[in-house]
């Protein structure tokens, strides 16, 4: 079997004295959609933000253990390098309001002071928007502000912005929780396309969504990784009583 793209070893995370993630061990493989689900407050979002070290922006955050990206310890890398390889999409669509659609897609290059020539720029914008299934809708309006788009389109713009940096992994933090059902379906469909090129880690509190879109599912409860298995197996034959209780709706 090929080497996992992401390995998590004995990983803990704290905010101050509160242990939010407890002793997680996990290996994730390429070109799959991995759902991280669990009730609110179970540490799933914190865990996700540890993967690109966004949790460090919160004062008092601390971690222990290792996360290896293709064998390399991410806590020994520069966070900048890491974030270029691990992109992120947030709960609420957050295109930069002072930039056009075109500039939004290229925002990562602007922010890192990477100069591109016009042809490269246009190629990146088109391919990123195509991959995010937004090109056909916006190709005539690239000079408009990104905030003029609908919620679902904005979220796809944010996905385009993240994949424009050609990351290995894309982290998605409940990317559909602020969207209507039709936009949600559009994003879910898009995830199936995206996994051909990227490894997707999707945090969701919506069990149905995890079941619909993911290949593997990790179930978090009270900061612990209770169970990690191929999605079909986890939902049909859970090994742990807590997983069983969660998917049968005893608590949520």
């Amino acid at each position, binding site marked *: 079997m090929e080497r996992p793209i992401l390995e998590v070893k004995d990983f803990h995370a704290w905010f101050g004295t509160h242990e939010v993630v407890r002793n997680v061990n996990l290996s994730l493989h390429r070109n799959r959609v991995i759902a991280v689900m669990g009730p609110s407050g179970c540490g799933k979002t914190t865990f996700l933000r540890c993967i690109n070290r966004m949790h460090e922006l919160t004062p008092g955050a601390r971690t222990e253990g290792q996360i290896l990206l293709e064998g390399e310890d991410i806590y020994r890398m520069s966070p900048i390098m890491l974030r270029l390889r691990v992109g992120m999409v947030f709960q609420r669509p957050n295109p930069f309001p002072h930039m056009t659609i075109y500039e939004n897609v290229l925002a990562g290059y602007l922010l*890192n*002071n990477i100069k591109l020539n016009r042809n490269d720029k246009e190629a990146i914008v088109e391919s990123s928007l195509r991959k995010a299934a937004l090109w056909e809708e916006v190709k005539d309006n690239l000079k408009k502000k990104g905030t003029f788009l609908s919620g679902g389109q904005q979220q796809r713009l944010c996905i385009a912005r993240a994949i424009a940096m050609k990351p290995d992994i894309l982290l998605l933090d409940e990317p559909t929780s602020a969207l209507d059902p039709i936009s949600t379906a559009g994003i879910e469909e898009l995830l199936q396309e995206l996994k051909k090129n990227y490894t997707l880690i999707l945090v969701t509190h919506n069990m149905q969504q995890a079941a619909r879109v993911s290949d593997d599912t990790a179930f978090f409860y009270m900061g612990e990784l209770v169970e990690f298995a191929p999605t079909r197996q986890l939902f049909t034959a859970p090994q742990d009583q807590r997983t069983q209780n969660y998917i049968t709706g005893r608590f949520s």
Partner: protein
Amino acid sequence: MPSPLATPPTEKSSRYSDTTEATRSLSRMRRLTLRISYAEKKDRFFRNGLLLAGLTILCLVIAIFLTLVIGSIPSFRATGIHFFWGKVWDPVTGVFGALPFLIGTLLTSFLALLISIPFSISIALFLGEYFPPGKGKNRLAGLVQEAVELIAGIPSVIYGFWGLFVLVPIVRNIETQWHVLPYGVGIFTASLILAIMIIPYAASLSREIISLVPDELKEAAYSLGATHWEVIRYIVLPYARTGIFAGILLSLGRALGETMAVTMVIGNTSAIPTSIFSPGNTLASVIANEFTEAANETYLSALIELGLVLFVVTTLIHLIGKRVIRQFSTT
């Protein structure tokens, strides 16, 4: 506490207290109607009160403007339109030209703005982005914030004193070293004092705006591999630019009208300044200095006309600034 609404209906109700069942329900209706009409009256009264306050302000502005205009009539008769670009101000021979003071006002204010902008934006970023006071153990940031607010509260005469005893000798030293006439007092010294005085205005408004930049935008930028500086440069400052501009405009307004501190260090010369080190005068400082000496009607009126010029200049800059802000916020 009894509701003020209830008072008139209770008086009425006592009159109907011993009537039949039917009239009692009728009286209840009347009570209700009365109460509503009373409430409506109160509402109207309140609204008119607010309207009165608003109109008073409007009338005051117009009245001040008219006073200035009427007061300037004798001077305008004597000097005419030439007043506005006349280069000579000589009350003894009765020649009145406002140009030296107009230049002095604009020069000191914009120079002060130029000096203060880097500081006020730095302070705003320091407090709004790097060390938000109140979060965690940022004692230093709290002190800095207090200091900024304190600077705004110091009376301007104290700035004048401080400028006279501290800044003037320093500037004189610099002038000696650069081989310009070492007056010490002058446009440059006035600009320095003004710069210090206006920093809090731009700094506190900009800080407010900077701390309003949504966290989700900053997070998005971080997740794309931006450093703190890059987030500020490409996300925070462009997002907050309208507010920062508004703050700068506020401080410019303050600089244009500042009188006391400027008067004390500008040198009070009625000639057009030839360099930023030469002594000069501003519209406000001339008025403050010469008002008590104005011996004849034309002289007094000329000073009032200077006031009119200052009024128009500040209004114009205010209007232009508003326009720019509107343009910024729509694009």
